[in-house]
């Protein structure tokens, strides 16, 4: 006799068998996945058979009169909103087909999820005449899936909202907004933990309100677009051209690539009153020539004290590649900061493989647009 419990197991077993066959086809035969799925199917059919034999464990097979009166034999009818969900998903699939593949894919996933839920709901509704018990049966089966998937979706919404907010608000207000938000979370959290009495309902409601506000702000700011500098950098196609050239216009207003500056700098290059000079540990005063060790990563820090935006360019020779057939390609070895405004600081890191005497042009540090601004680099 096919009981409610065994039906579930047989169903799962059949699905697994189908999956094994599909896997076999998709992976051109022979695969450890097929073996694993086949074993799983056998195990499910086996347990299903046992469930049939013991009448889902509710009655002994010998107690024939009890068969009809057992929980498993009763039918209760529960209400379900999954048909509605499935219909909605089908609608999405249809809309997606004519509009965008994204909606179509989400629709398909939703359809599968709804159908699965519906199937299990139907199945669990027949577990007994006791709706509370049936709900429990349902939850045993679907919670291990529903909770992690739901949790990940929730997290995705939170992370996405946060990132949209961060990309949209200005660099100055960002730290303030998030410092306040963090402080608030800490404060509310400690209030809840201190006041033991706080009801679950209030906490839940609060979390719900925050979630709605967060995702609302996220959606609103995503529609509003990213902040100005980012939009400009994207429009300029920042990575498509030589970043050291004149045509790279985008400026890092508040240059922040100064992390390496805090670790260790070989030389600091300063542009002040139209003059370019360097400072280095070991030498007093302003230098017009610096020295860097060969084949060794060196950080050079650029400080712009001029009113205009400037970038520092480090040029250290040329490599000539033989492309064959008498054709060769010259590549100028150079590194640069991005354009930085007054008071900005940025570092570049260079590894110079050849000594300066290997190059006809001296190795140098220059600032495009500032006449005569050049520092010689000596590499022994």
């Amino acid at each position: 006799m096919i009981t409610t419990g065994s039906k579930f197991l047989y169903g799962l077993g059949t699905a697994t068998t189908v999956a094994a066959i599909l896997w076999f086809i998709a992976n051109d035969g022979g695969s450890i996945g097929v073996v694993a799925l086949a074993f799983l199917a056998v195990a499910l059919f086996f347990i299903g058979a046992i469930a049939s034999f013991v009448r889902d464990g509710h009655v002994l097979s010998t107690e024939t009169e009890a068969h009809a009166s057992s929980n498993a034999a009763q039918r209760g009818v529960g209400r379900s909103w999954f048909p509605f969900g499935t219909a909605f998903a089908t609608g999405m699939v249809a809309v997606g087909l004519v509009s965008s593949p994204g909606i179509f894919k989400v629709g398909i996933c939703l359809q599968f999820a709804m159908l699965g839920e519906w199937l299990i709901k139907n199945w669990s509704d027949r577990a007994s005449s006791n709706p509370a018990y049936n709900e429990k049966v349902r939850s045993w089966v679907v919670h291990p899936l529903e909770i992690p998937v739901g949790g990940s979706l929730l997290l995705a919404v939170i992370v996405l909202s946060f990132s949209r907010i961060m990309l949209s608000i200005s660099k100055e207000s960002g730290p303030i907004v998030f410092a306040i938000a963090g402080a608030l979370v800490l404060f509310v959290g400690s209030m809840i933990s201190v006041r033991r009495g706080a009801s679950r309902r209030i906490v839940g409601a609060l979390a719900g309100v925050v979630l709605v506000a967060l995702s609302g702000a996220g959606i609103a700011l995503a529609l509003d677009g990213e902040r100005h500098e980012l939009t400009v950098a994207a429009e300029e196609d920042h990575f498509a051209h030589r970043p050291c050239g004149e045509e790279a216009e985008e400026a890092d207003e508040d240059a922040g690539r100064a992390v390496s500056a805090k670790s260790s700098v070989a030389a600091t290059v300063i542009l002040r009153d139209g003059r370019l000079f360097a400072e280095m540990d070991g030498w007093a005063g302003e230098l017009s020539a610096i020295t860097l060790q060969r084949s060794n990563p060196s950080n050079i820090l650029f400080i712009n004290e001029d009113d205009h935006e400037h970038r520092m360019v480090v040029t250290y020779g040329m490599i000539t590649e033989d492309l064959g057939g008498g054709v060769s390609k010259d590549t100028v070895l150079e590194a640069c900061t991005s354009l930085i405004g007054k008071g900005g600081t940025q570092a570049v890191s260079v590894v110079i493989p050849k000594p300066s005497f290997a190059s006809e042009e001296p190795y140098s540090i220059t600032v495009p647009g500032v006449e005569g601004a050049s520092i010689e680099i000596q590499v022994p």
Partner: protein
Amino acid sequence: MKSSRRWSTAIKSTLAVSALTFLAGCAKDAPQDTWQPAGPNAEKIDNLQRPVFYVAGIVGVIVFAAVAWVIFRYRDRGQALPEQTHGKPALEITLTVIPVLILIGVGVPTVGTIFDLAKTSDTEMTINVTGQQWWWEYDYPAVGDNADVYGISEPIVTSGQLVIPEDTKVLLRVTSRDVIHSYWIPKLNGKKDGVPGRVHLLRLEGSEPGIYAGQCTEFCGLSHAYMRMETVVLSKTDYAAWVANQLEPYASPSADNALAVEGEKLFLQQCARCHQVNGLLNPDGTPNIAAPDQYVVSGAAPNLTNLMTRNTFAGASWDLLTPECRDDVWNASSAEFGAKYLAGVSEDCLNQKDLREWLRNAPEKKPMYADPTKLTETGGKYRGMPALGLTEDQINAIVAYLLERK
């Protein structure tokens, strides 16, 4: 009776071992002895460590004696457990205040010394010191006072032996091309790590001409033990002579030294791709530029332009001088030392044995990751110098060529 005899044997042997260990610290010929400072920086450390050592020693003796006395005096003889007390504020406060006072007494001069040794504003000369597996490179930049005062009009690159003028505040800019190394000349100053991507500053000053030995003091792989270095202090006039010699333009071997002429050819074929010899020309007349960055993991190999002006090679682990000639230089009085050092390595004084062994099969002499079949991990690059399979004739020619590099 029996057990007490066993005890006395144990005590006697412990004493003997301690005495031996103690005496081992009194070696006569100890070139790396921190207790023999030979420059103001090391003296500062010495002036601090001696009193600290005495204070710590006295405290240690008092504590050990007190513990020993308590152990003996109150040993278990079956007596009743004495009265157990808890807390004795006067005693506890005294026992806290005394160490605090001692530590303040030690701490204040320690902090003062740390700041003194970190000072860079009085620098007179700056030298770059770059560690790599397993040797040190020195480059003397032609920047600032180096050029204006010391006549270093072109950068000088050497290895193994750092040469500095006497009574001059030299600042080393220490870094590394691969892993962490540490530069330490015990008689001249404390140690300073060379860390890739960072530049660390170390003051160095010698007050007496001579050679001061040291050793890499940060474990840096296979041949860490063969990563040694020396600092040579020369009088100011000798130093000027040394600089002038380093800057002398390259001269190809003259035609009557046929062996060396052959050696130059071989050097261009076999060695010049890793080792720079400034001024050496390719057969087509263009300057030869070594490309160690393509063959060696660290991207560097020793500059051999003036190999024979130094007395050691391969991480200062072997001498370029025969033992007699070496002793002659090391034991020279400080007045004679300069002239002997500047003479460099002559044919009679050349330590043929070790140099030839090096050229025959370098990785056999100094363990290095230089097996060409095991270089996939480093993209075909060596750590150290590979065996080049030279014949004895080729080695003769190359040695003749190298002998002229001074």
